[in-house]
Structures are given as C-alpha cells and as structure tokens.
C-alpha cells in the first residue's frame, strides 16, 4: 500500500472493527523543536514546586497511610520525590478480597464498556503527559526522550489492549458438523496481581494492569519501591474515568508485599516484570495450591536478559556504532532490552572497538533533566555498587577499554567498554543492568550464534549484516524473543514489536502483541446437541 507521497503506509490489523478507531502509536514529542523542550522544562519546574508527592495505600478506593517510605531523585539523592504509604500483609488480604468483589462487577460489564474506560484513561494520561515525563525524570532519572517515550508506551498499552479485548469477545470459529453447535469464548480469570519494576515506571505497570482490566479481571498493583509516584498516576487515571474502585488497588511497598500478594489464594494470575531471581521465586510460590484455593495460579513473567549484538564483516560501522551506543548506554543501560555484549567478526573487531571506545569517551554523563545528557545516573546506590563490581571483574578477566567521567553527587556510573575477556568471565553471562558493554572477537557469525545459544537468556539481540542469506540463517537459528536486524535493539513499540523473552528470560506471550491478552482469560467451549428426535433443529 502506498499513500499519496509514495511512502508505504502501515497496514493496520485493528482497522476499526471496534468502533474505537484504528490503533496508532502515540506520537513522541518532537524534542528537536525548542518550544517543545521549553514546555517540558516548565512542567518539571511546576512539578518541583509540588514535591514530595504523597502516595497512599489505596485499597478498594479507600486512601490509607501515605507515610512509610520515600522515593528520591537519583541525581540528587537528598531530594524526596514521593512519600508513600507502606502496605502491609493485612493490606494485601484486604486488597485481594476487594478485587474479588471488583472482578465480579467489572467482569460483568461488556467488553466495549471496559474498552471505553481504558481509552478514557489513555486520554487522561495524554492530558498529563508533560507532567508525567517530568515525574520520571525526577523519580527514576529517566532522560526526557525516554521518559516521554515511556508515557507514550503507557498510552499505547491502554489503547491497544482496549481494542484487542474487543476482538476476543467472540471466540474463534470451530469445526461444525450436523447435529451439534460448537462455540468457544474467553472469560476473565478473576484477580490479577501485578508486580512491576521501576525502569519503565509507567509503561510496564500500565501494560500489565491494562491487560488484566481489558479482559475483565480486577487488579492489585504492587509497584517497585523506587517509583511509587509514577504508579499512582496510573491508578488515578483509571479511577478517574469510571473504573470501579475495587477493580484496582495500589499497594506501595517492598518485596515482602509482593511476596504476600503472590501467596494469596485469592489471586488467579500473576503478571510480573523484574529480575530472574524474583521471577523464579514467583513461579515456585505460584505452584502452591493451599486448601481452599480452587484454582492453579498462572504466571506471566518477564525476566532478565543478556542481550548480544552480532556484527558481521559486511556491516556498516557508521550504523553500528550509534546503534550500539544507544542500545547499551541509553538510560544508563537500565532496560531489559539493553545491549550488553557485542560479538564482532574479527575482520572488523579492532576498527569497531576503536570507534566505539571513542564514541563512549564523549558521552555526556549528567542529570536526566538536562537536554544533551547521554547517560543519566543509575537508580540507586546498590546499582552503582553492582555495576562497579562487574567493571572490576571485567578488569581482572580482561581489559577496560574506556571508562567515562562522572559528575559528583548522584548515583552516577561511568559508561564503560570492556574487551579481551576470558570466555568464563561472569560479565559475559550475567545481567549487569547498567552502562557496561563488553566487546568480543568472533571468528564469524556462526561462532557468535553458538555463544548466544549457550546463554540461558533469550530476550533481545541484534545482527548487523548486509547479506540476506546471513540474516535468514541467524534469524532461523537464534532463540531470541526479539531479534533486531541492522538497528538498535531497544525501543519496542506496542503493536509493532510485541516484546518478551524466551527461555530463562520469561514465560508468557509477548507484551503489546496480539496473543498477550489470552493469558488473562480462561477459555470455555460449549457443545450443544441440536438433534431432537432424529431431526436437526438449528
């Protein structure tokens, strides 16, 4: 399909079967325009005047305590961004009980009624998008372009799942033979526990919450302790547009709240995004079926990755270098999709390493609020120490090719490139989740594929090659959830790049894709006998 300007126009599978209009991705802000930047700076100033925000425990619409712990600005740790109530185990029990009631009310509504609520919540977020981006700048040190993209992705999840849920209202067609009528349909599972991370403090909780709600479930949200402020914005948006209060509760708090939520027998589905260790704990805990629990819990888990990029000898290094820098150091490498290992064909290894090192040397490390910052601080002190540990280890089992400069104060971590590593160096197999990239020499694309196959992770990965045969071979071989060819490996878009890992990187269908919602439903099939006294009566 071509439009009037001769450019291929996107074909849209969701084209208006829904009455809500076709889904399109929310446009990100055009930050290259000075007035747009000025509007963001103004929004941040306005937000700063209101800090700290107060985030209550919110159970069934009842506002509980809002003083228990604080989230702080990673660039200026003394600055308190939000003051949040600390949910307890009894809050968990109350919230799940409320959700049980909420699920009955919400699940009884038609899919279109539910979809309209989600679309309205998207509009509410859209109306606050500058302020929400500013909040991410403060609470998570997410630089403007990424913070803005995070808000857009949250809006996308609401809009996309609203439409997808409508498509699920009528189940797929089944084989029919004379004398019987077969139908299949989807119903909500009940209560969804959502446990979300801080690195996409709005988009990821929104995605998991929206999926649960779109399919008629009630949700209890336990956001990361580092970003309660962003989570509150989501809950407010939904409660403000007609979601029954009991259908969504907010439990700010730490790990023990999440653990209690996972164990609660009233929870049917657990949607989790976070570390592999916690994810596997959840899978184990969810397998328990205590007396009185009349169901087996389902877990949808998005866990870590060790994302590798293969660079073949025919790659265009002019494209490789910026794509790698962006994928490895954008948001200080704190994306589950971030690049952490590069496997380079030996013919171009030295040249790429030299250019990459030089490119990392000039990266600007600084606060997220400053336009022009390439690498913001990491989330907290623990992250600084973890990354420093890996850098030290890389120095012992290889060579640190470049380590950038950092400003004083704040949880800054110098962007680092390491090379010449021993094959068994831990940094080659463990997730670092910070601004550290390792570069390895590979004898060829097939050897590089072998190294990737040996990893337990299989989230994202990249290939730079200008040979169609190589692209096809690598795509067929690698087990990755998301393979990106000749581009950066982060920035999956809802509806365009459904996102999620395979192997130890995750269980469940891809977020932002057409099969994600099924996980939040139960399937029912009905077969009706249409023979009466030897006659087919249909």
């Amino acid at each position, binding site marked *: 399909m071509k439009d009037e*300007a001769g450019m291929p126009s996107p074909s849209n599978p969701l084209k208006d079967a829904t009455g809500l209009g076709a889904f399109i991705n929310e446009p990100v802000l055009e930050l290259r325009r000075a007035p747009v930047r000025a509007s963001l700076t103004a929004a941040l100033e306005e937000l700063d005047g209101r800090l700290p925000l107060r985030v209550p425990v919110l159970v069934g619409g009842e506002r509980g305590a809002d003083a228990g712990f604080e989230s702080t600005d990673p660039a200026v740790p003394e600055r308190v961004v939000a003051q949040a109530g600390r949910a307890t185990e009894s809050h968990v029990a109350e919230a799940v009980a409320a959700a049980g009631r909420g699920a009955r009310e919400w699940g009884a509504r038609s899919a279109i009624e539910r979809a309209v609520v989600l679309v309205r919540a998207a509009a509410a977020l859209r109306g606050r998008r500058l302020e929400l981006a500013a909040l991410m700048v403060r609470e998570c040190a997410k630089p403007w372009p990424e913070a803005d993209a995070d808000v857009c992705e949250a809006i996308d999840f609401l809009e996309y799942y609203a439409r997808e849920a409508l498509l699920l209202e009528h189940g797929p067609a089944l084989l029919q033979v004379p004398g019987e009528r077969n139908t299949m349909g989807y119903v909500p599972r009940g209560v969804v526990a959502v446990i979300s991370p801080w690195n996409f403090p709005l988009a990821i909780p929104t995605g998991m919450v929206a999926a649960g709600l779109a399919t008629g479930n009630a949700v209890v949200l336990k956001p990361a302790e580092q970003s309660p402020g962003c989570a509150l914005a989501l809950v407010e948006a939904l409660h403000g547009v007609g979601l029954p209060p009991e259908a969504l509760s907010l439990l700010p708090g730490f790990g023990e709240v999440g653990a209690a939520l996972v164990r609660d027998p009233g929870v049917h589905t657990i949607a989790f995004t976070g570390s592999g260790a916690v994810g596997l704990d959840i899978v184990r805990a969810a397998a328990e079926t205590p007396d009185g629990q009349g169901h087996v819990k389902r877990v949808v888990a998005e866990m870590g990755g060790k994302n590798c990029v293969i660079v073949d000898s*025919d790659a265009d290094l002019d494209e490789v270098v910026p794509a790698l820098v962006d994928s490895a150091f954008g948001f200080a490498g704190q994306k589950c999709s971030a690049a952490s290992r590069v496997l380079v064909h030996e013919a171009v290894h030295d040249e790429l390493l030299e*250019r990459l090192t030089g490119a990392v040397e000039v990266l600007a490390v600084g606060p997220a609020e400053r336009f*022009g910052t390439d690498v913001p601080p990491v989330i907290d002190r623990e992250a600084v120490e973890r990354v420093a540990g890996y850098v030290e280890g890389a120095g012992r089992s290889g060579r640190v090719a470049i380590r950038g400069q950092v400003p004083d104060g704040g949880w800054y971590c110098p962007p680092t490139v390491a090379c010449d590593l021993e094959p068994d160096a831990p940094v080659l197999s463990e997730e670092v989740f910070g601004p550290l990239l390792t570069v390895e020499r590979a004898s060829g694309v097939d050897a590089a594929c072998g190294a990737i196959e040996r990893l337990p992770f299989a989230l994202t990965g990249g290939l730079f090659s200008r*040979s*169609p045969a190589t692209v096809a071979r690598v795509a067929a071989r690698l087990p990755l959830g998301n393979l990106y060819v000749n581009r950066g490996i982060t920035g999956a878009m809802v509806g365009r790049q459904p996102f999620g890992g395979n192997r130890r990187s995750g269980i469940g269908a891809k977020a932002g894709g057409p099969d994600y919602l099924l996980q939040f439903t139960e399937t029912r099939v009905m077969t009706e006998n249409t023979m009466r006294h030897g006659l087919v009566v249909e």
Partner: protein
Amino acid sequence: MPHGEELLTRVGRDLHAALPSPSRHPIKALDAKGMELASRDAELRAALFRLVDVTPACRSLDDLARHLAEYVEEVDERPQALEAAMRVAHTAPGRRALGAAAATGVRHMAHRFIVGESPQAALGVLGDLWKEGSACSVDLLGEATFTREEADRYAARCDEALEVLSVAAGSWPGRHLLEADSAGPLPRVNLSVKVSALTPLMRPDAPHVGREDAAQRLRPLLRRAQDLGAHLHIDMESLDALETTMELVFELLDEPEFSDGPSAGVVLQAYLRDSGQQLDRILEWARASARRPPLTVRLVKGAYWDHEVVEARRHGWTPPVFEVKAESDRNFEELTRRLLDSRPRKDEAGMPSPSNPLLRVAVASHNIRSLAHAIAHNRATGGEDRDLELQVLRGLGDELGIAIAASGLRVRSYCPVGDLVAGMAYLVRRLLENTSNDSFLGEQQRGASIEDLLAAP
C-alpha cells in the same frame, strides 16, 4: 502566458539548446541506460543500491559476488543479462569474474561522482573544470563522526584541502566571470564543510552541545580560509542538524575576528515547510551583523527527503518537508525571488546602489525550470547575470554545467573528494536521487519534452 513565464521559457530553451549531445559521451549514455533500467523497476533498483552500498565492506571478489547474487535473488523479474550473470555465480571462478565485474561497475559509478581520492588527486579535474568555465566547491567525503579523533581528522583534512587548493588555484588562468561579482572579488578556492563531521556531539534535542564542540574546530578553519582568501561553505544536512548548524554559523561569523572575512555561506532547503522562516532568520541576522562580506546563501531543494519523511512517520510526526514534489518546486521559486529581491536595487539613474548586498545568491539545482526561473527573475528585476551563481553537482549536472558556462553565466560544480568507502553514503544518495520517479533528471532521461520540462510546477 504571463510575462515572466515567457522570459523564463526563452531562457530555459536556450539553456536546453546549449546542452552537449549525450551521444558525444558514450560512457555516460551507457550509465544512463543502467540508471533508466533501475528507475523502471523498484526491485532492481533496490538490488543495485544494496550492491553499491555493500561494495566497500566486501573482503573479496567472491564475497562481493555472493552479496550480489543474494540481492538479485530477491528480484522477481530479472533482465536476461542479469539472469545469465547469476548462473555463473554457482562456481568459484564464476563468482570471481562476477565480483570483478561488479567492483568495476561500482568504481566506475563512483568515479562519475567523486573527483579524486584526495585534494591532491582531484587537482587535475578541478583545474580542467575551471578552464572550461566552471568554478568548484570541494566537499571532503568521510565516514560518520563519532569520536573526537574523527572530528579532528576531518578538520585537519579540511585544513589541508584549503592549503592544497590554494597553492594549485594560484596558477589557474584568469576567468573574469568566476572571480568577481558586483559586490567584489570571489575566491577561487571554495570548500564545503559538514558540521556533523566536525563534532561527535550532534544532539538534535541539545543543539548547544554540538555547537560548542564544533565551534572549536570551525574557528581555526575560518581563520585559515581568511588567511588564504578562500570561501568556506557550511552545507546543510538533515533537520536534526539544522539548529546546531545555523546557530554555529551565526555565532562564529559574528565574532570580531571574522568581521572582514572569510567569505562564507549557508544553505537554505526549499523542501522544508518552514524554509520561509529560515530565510527570515538569515536575513535578520545579515541585517544585524556588522560583518562586511555578504553571506552567500545556496538555495537547494534538500537532499534528505526520504530520511525526513520516514523518520517523521516512524515517530508519528507531520513530516517537516513538503510531500508533493511540485510544492518543493514552487517554494524553491518563491525563495529564489525573495533571495534575489533582498539585494539592493539600482537607483533611478540605473546606477547600482552603493550599499553592499546583504546576501550573495547561489541557486543549486539540476532542474532547468528552477534554474531558468532564477535567471529570468534576476534579469527581469534588473539584476546582473554575474550576481547570480548557479551550482550543480559533479556527476549529475556536468552537461548542465557546460550549458550554463556556454550561456555566459557563472556556474560552480560541487565536487566530492574522498575514497570509495567514505563516499558510499553520498554515492547511494545521489543514485537514489537520480533514479527516483519524481526527479527532474529522471524525467529528462525518460525523454520528456522541453515544454513539459519547463512547465510551471
């Protein structure tokens, strides 16, 4: 036909009549044939571009042949000749032969656009151009700049080019039309510079970062151009670089040490929807500036059309460029008029105004209609021919350049210098331009009549 159109048509027909016959350039005619084939079949075109693009990265002839075969594999309808060529790709000697042929073909194409591997190597061509009546602007091709060293290296190459060209240009014969206009002398040496090559810190959302870094490398180049009496032209790239580029040029040229020189210029891209405001800004700056030499403005349509549209669509933005070719063409004419009209008028007695012009105008295009419009408007408003410069790209506008020179007008040929690897991005862009359906050259190649070619957009 309005009065202006009549004059325009006459100018256009004269220019067209002055074009050398293609039959006298058999090699170019052959090239044109290949281009024409590519412009008719989108898949073939894609295969050709991918081949050209990958050539410098291929390690051997076998490697090149393998890539070629894979690209051709994806073309549904293959011309006979290509089909035959692919059959030999199944054996190693066949591949070597095929790879050698492809490498020769690509090198040949590159030579059409790239005048030499280094300024030294380019001197022969540049001197010949000058003798035939065409000035030049040299553009140093390079890989993208990501590091300080790369930016320093590019700046050093620019510095060296200024030096080498100045020495050589000293012995070129006098060419009155190329060396002065009514505002004064025009430098023989003219270098085009890209800001994105002068800094690794181009950040579209933080123009000041790149500006500050690039300034440290552009300033010494301006000094050097001043010492040597050369002209420095700052090219315009994609919209992401526009703020950085304009702010940088305005800021540096306003520094006191450059108030008397060197001669310098910027580029205005007519395909930008807001190019009218860009021109306002240039004029405003020129009026306010205490600088003596007039700023040269090279008017172009814009070379990053596909990039701007794709980038905007990917992000859900309204493209910053016009989406109908005729709108770019019309805007080009509008901006041409505004640029020419910005110059001081002759007084009632027909004497040139004593005030220095704010700007010098250079109109860069291969579109005979666009050029004829500029020439005609200049004449119709009492301008002198020598106060309008016309510019063409080496490899695309060679014949046109000859025709312009033969018509007694000043022409400057933009001449890329550099090796094949570094020149690839440039080469691919030019090929794309030459074979796109919308392009004037494409239309001309397909044999459109001069009436159609000169019709108002």
